[in-house]
């Protein structure tokens, strides 16, 4: 079975994440009613630039810890949700998936909310960076100043999740 939380260079396979979150043992077996999933995909346009490809890098051990932190937040906020989160690094072409998330729950509202919350938190606190290679140059994309203890950011992620 694949790990629930991972960073790697191989193409992401959403079906493996879905299988990982629904293959429960013991009392939880068969209790899932819904799986919400998300794939982040490399887009051919950004900020008016024609994107050729992206290169992702990560501070891998801290990124995995960040994923564990996010999974812990999800477990506290949505008990019973089982979460899988994989991020790809290296060179990614247009249309390829950079991040894959699957969240299984007895009820679809929790599955959707926790899945959305997870991608928001990845963008806020995971030490991962993308370098955009566009027609005419390249640029490091810089988004959020990462601070896992920033409760304002966390509340914003919860709002985005409609939680």
């Amino acid at each position, binding site marked *: 079975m694949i790990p629930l939380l991972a960073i790697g260079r191989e193409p992401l396979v959403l079906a493996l994440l879905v299988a990982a979150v629904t293959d429960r043992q013991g009392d939880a077996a068969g209790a899932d009613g819904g799986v919400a999933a998300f794939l*982040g995909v490399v887009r051919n346009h950004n900020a008016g630039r024609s994107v050729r490809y992206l290169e992702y*890098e990560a*501070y891998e051990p801290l990124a995995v810890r960040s994923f564990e932190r996010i999974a812990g937040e999800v477990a506290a906020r949505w008990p019973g949700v089982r979460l899988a989160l994989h991020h790809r690094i290296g060179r990614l072409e247009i249309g390829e998936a*950079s991040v894959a998330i699957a969240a299984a729950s007895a009820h679809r509202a929790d599955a959707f909310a926790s899945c959305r919350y997870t*991608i928001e938190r990845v963008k806020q606190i995971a*030490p991962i*960076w993308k370098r955009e290679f566009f027609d005419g140059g390249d640029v*490091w994309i810089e*988004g959020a100043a990462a601070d896992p203890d920033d409760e304002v950011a966390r509340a914003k992620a919860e709002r985005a999740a409609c939680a």
Partner: protein
Amino acid sequence: MRVTVRLFARLRDITGASEIGRDVAPGATIGSIWRGLVAEFPDLAGYERSISSAVNTDYARMDHPVDDGDEVAFLPPVSGG
């Protein structure tokens, strides 16, 4: 004391190194190491308010003290997902 400094993304481009060894005095903090780097690489100064930092692969604040052998990391604003 000797620490290893890890630098990512544009910080690495500015410094030209993904990993730098640094001798530091007792009482050094993440912040004092950062200020030393900024003195050496003035282009880092623009990150004063947006930098994040970690010690031994855990997020840590700038006032966090460092020990001999620590791995200190400086992280520009993140853009995963």
